[in-house]
């Protein structure tokens, strides 16, 4: 086994590590080699041929050539420049690139290469063949005219996200990225994780909801955790302060727990707010609803605070829970259960080492999608088997799985013996299932609770209790009518109008999502951070500072 060794890079001896490609070595020593299909989170493919270097008299792709002891590499020479220029010309002229109206102009890796090479005209004919535009998908536009066939999307979809939707069809210059067996993307098995869009170096994949909403120099990127579910993927939120809006959300390739993976909910649904936003405090008397000043609503609340019980849902951040605990000592409860049927014993990273997954009534394409990716990747690699208990046939339909009813599973518990690193994932469990899992000491478990900050609720000692009493105070963004009866005096602190607020005597509009600073816990108990990137549309209540002595209206 080789340990460190040296190679010669442009005449200088430099250190190289085993498993490094020539490109890796060059980059680790700050030597620039242009590349396009290469991506730090993806296995190299060598499609573009821009990263060519000279080695031993040959011209080779540095991204797919392992560095070997004693190699003499030249990264820049007239021969290499000529080769790279021809390659770049072929890439540009092979498709139809119109920078002037493209959404990613100014933020495009192909364009950047053009500028780097000083390309100022084409040397081959182009703009002759029309390539399709696939607009069948709800969120994603696929314009084949802008595709450079780098294959990053295919690699991301398969290797990173585990969905294996994208592939190539046809040959030569007619090659096209295709979904499943060449059906429109919107009808395919795509689950809208968006990994393809994020890795695409050009404007071939574009997010329709985000297009043209801010140029690169306008965008501010803030790192935080996603708060749409308890997985807590690390994300880069792209906001445009000039429009006070969030433009798009990208995954962070370097950060746990999911290293850049995201899902439809976090990437797209977080931007589509179908709810009716509350911007005015309301007061209801008999059947009349009046808009009142925020101060007035807070006064009404403060006056009756001691007479009632407060209930929170799992969307609130830690600071909000802490403040409510101060305001309602002994009178603060959770609307929804905070205790698991069985506590978790595993972390998200354990999914990457499992050899058996047992999923109880979960569709990990529709929820906790990043975890779904991790499960799928592991199963596809052949390293783990998959058992779906009470799953409907469409769930994970492309994967080999044993689909068992609960009864059938309970009759086959021996399967758990054979596995050295089995992981069970569940939201709820029947009594017999509970028993079966509890008995197995080596079996790892992850409880996927329905709300985001359930662990926060537990950590702050806020227990579940059904709503009762005449004076009730509700706090949260997930309030449901089924949680509440018809208390005589109901006050809701929530961002949205819904069936519950329509019953309330006082409605106080609050901050939501991208307007809040704060922390929360993910399902592993990791502390996550949220940062405000937009200012609210009106003066709204900040629960974390509710009735603070130093009034700080947001």
């Amino acid at each position, binding site marked *: 086994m080789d340990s460190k060794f040296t190679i010669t890079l442009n005449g200088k001896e430099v250190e190289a590590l085993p498993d490094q490609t020539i490109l890796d070595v060059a980059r680790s020593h700050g030597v620039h080699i242009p590349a396009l299909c290469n991506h730090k989170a993806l296995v190299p493919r060598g499609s573009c041929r821009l990263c060519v270097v000279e080695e031993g008299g040959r011209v080779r792709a540095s991204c797919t050539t392992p560095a070997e002891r004693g190699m003499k590499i030249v990264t820049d020479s007239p021969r290499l420049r000529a080769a790279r220029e021809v390659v770049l010309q072929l890439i540009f002229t092979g498709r139809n690139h119109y920078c*002037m*109206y493209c959404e990613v102009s100014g933020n495009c890796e192909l364009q950047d290469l053009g500028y780097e090479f000083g390309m100022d005209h084409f040397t081959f004919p182009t703009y002759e063949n029309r390539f399709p*535009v696939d607009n069948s998908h709800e969120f994603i536009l696929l*314009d084949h005219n802008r595709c450079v066939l780098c294959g990053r999307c295919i690699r991301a979809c398969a290797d990173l996200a585990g969905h294996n939707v994208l592939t190539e069809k046809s040959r030569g210059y007619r090659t096209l990225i295709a979904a499943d067996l060449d059906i429109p993307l919107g009808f395919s098995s795509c689950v809208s994780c968006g990994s393809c869009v994020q890795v695409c170096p050009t404007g071939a994949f574009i997010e329709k*909801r985000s297009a*043209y909403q*801010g*140029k690169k120099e306008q965008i501010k990127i803030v790192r935080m955790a996603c708060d749409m579910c308890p997985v807590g993927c690390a994300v880069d939120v792209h906001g445009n302060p000039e*429009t006070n809006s969030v433009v798009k959300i990208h995954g962070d390739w370097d950060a746990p727990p999911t290293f850049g993976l995201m899902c439809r909910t976090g990437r797209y649904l977080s931007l589509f707010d179908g709810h009716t936003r509350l911007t005015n405090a309301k007061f209801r008397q008999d059947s009349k609803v009046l808009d009142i000043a925020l101060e007035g609503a807070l006064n009404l609340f403060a006056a009756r605070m001691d007479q009632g019980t407060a209930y929170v849902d799992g969307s609130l951040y830690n600071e909000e829970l802490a403040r409510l605990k101060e305001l309602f000592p002994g009178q603060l409860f959770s609307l929804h259960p905070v205790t698991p049927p069985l506590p978790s014993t595993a972390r998200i990273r354990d999914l990457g080492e499992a050899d058996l997954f047992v999923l109880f009534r979960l569709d990990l394409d529709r929820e906790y999608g990043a975890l779904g990716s991790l499960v799928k990747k592991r199963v596809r690699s052949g390293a783990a088997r998959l058992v779906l208990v009470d799953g409907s046939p469409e769930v994970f339909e492309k994967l080999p799985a044993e689909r068992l009813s609960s009864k059938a599973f309970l009759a086959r518990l021996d399967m758990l013996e054979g596995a050295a690193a089995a992981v069970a994932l569940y939201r709820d469990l029947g009594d017999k299932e509970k028993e079966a899992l509890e008995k197995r000491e080596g079996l790892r478990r992850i409880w996927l609770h329905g709300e985001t900050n359930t662990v926060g609720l537990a950590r702050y000692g806020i227990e579940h209790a059904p709503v009762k009493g005449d004076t009730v105070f509700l706090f949260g963004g997930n309030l449901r009518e089924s949680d509440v009866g018809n208390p005589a005096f109901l006050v809701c602190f929530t961002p949205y109008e819904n069936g519950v607020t329509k019953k309330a005597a006082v409605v106080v509009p609050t901050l939501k999502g991208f307007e809040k600073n704060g922390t929360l816990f993910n399902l592993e108990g990791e502390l996550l951070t949220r940062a405000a990137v937009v200012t609210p549309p009106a003066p709204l209540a900040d629960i974390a500072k509710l009735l603070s002595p130093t009034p700080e209206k947001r």
Partner: protein
Amino acid sequence: MTKKITISPVTRIEGHAKVTIHLDDEGRVERTYFHVNQFRGYEKFTEGRFYDELPMITPRICGICPVSHHLAAAKACDEILGRPVPRTAALLRELIHMGQMIQSHAMHFFELAGPDLVLGWDADPAVRNVVGLVRANPELALKAVKLRKYGQTIIEEVAGRRIHPSFAIPGGVNASLSPGSRDRILKQVDEMIAYIREGVSIILAFIEAHKEECDAFAAFPSAYMGLVKDGGALELYDGIVRMAGRDGRVLDEFAGKYYLSHIAEKVDDWSYLKFPYFKPLGDPEGHYRVGPLGRFNASDRIGTPLAQEEFGKFKTMNGGKPVESSVYYHYARLIEAVYALERAREILEDGDILSRDVLNPGPVTNEEGIGVIEAPRGTLFHHYWVDERGTVKKANLIVATGHNNWAMSQAVDNVARGYIQGHDIPEGVLNRVEGAIRCYDPCLSCSTHAIGRMPVVVEVYDHEGAFVASRERA
């Protein structure tokens, strides 16, 4: 023997045009043709694109008024999106629209038409251009440069760049205005108004000095069309369409989205530019004029004080009847530039102008959208049909200058007949024919959403149409 005079290309206009004048044996004008020699195909090649690209694709129809297309496209896309545009976004869009009016009108008057008005129709062609103006009257030329720069700077400050900005998108705009930008733009309004008024003195002096000639120059009756609001005030950004008749009375008013019931386009074999007309009156009765003179004849007043003063004067130029001579386009154009400056100031002083509530995005909800706006040269219609996902199925564009196609042909014919007697044609006369076209400040790249080929050539054919001889002008 008949002779054909070809003027190609027509210079000091935007786009490609040539004029052919056919003379009879006595040297009298038999027939003139105003050929627009440009066709691009936007109405076809946008098919299959996602609708939100249209505000970025369509400005490439024209580099002088890209903002008009950008905004008309955005308005049509707003309808397809189906969400209301925040007030500040509408104000900012109107602000860059005013910037464009200022820039385009100033450039046209001083740099395209100006050389004729300041140096004279018959001046030596070698100096009868903006450079000649710079040499003859450097102070004026500098003001002209500053005016154009000011209009362009408004666009740059608000939308990020001067030509083909990426700013208006379905549901609003993608940037807000900073206090610094607002103050910078506000500071210069008065100075610019002063410069435009110098232009007004020039045109009024020119008209005064050549009153008879001007009043007869390319003067003919027509209908007139423009956007209005608040019961008849001239409107450039968002209003309803008004069609006024040759006597100035209102024939009809309709919301822009009903344009298909009111306007039809005819094709003639000798021009790539179609001929719109007002359907109830048919062709040729229904031909109308747009742009500054058209708008002024169609409306009752203009909404800002200094402009209204001049507007009132304009309305007296033909004894209270619609002003018919094409030369008065230049006057109306400058008055509109004053309005644009005053309106820009109003917008900048609006309490909401710095708000960041400028964008209301979402998914596609409608399958059709129509955007209507007054471009510097006339009413602009963008009409798109999309499928349920927003892919463009069809597009129809009627572009400002197109509405003036008939009028420009009339103007050319009128001036040719008026000035060409016999076979000896001085160069200044040919320039007047081009000057007739220039009154309309045509934007031919726009209207044909589709060094000349030859110099001026006089070709002589015999009565059987056989070529006899030709003479070239350098």
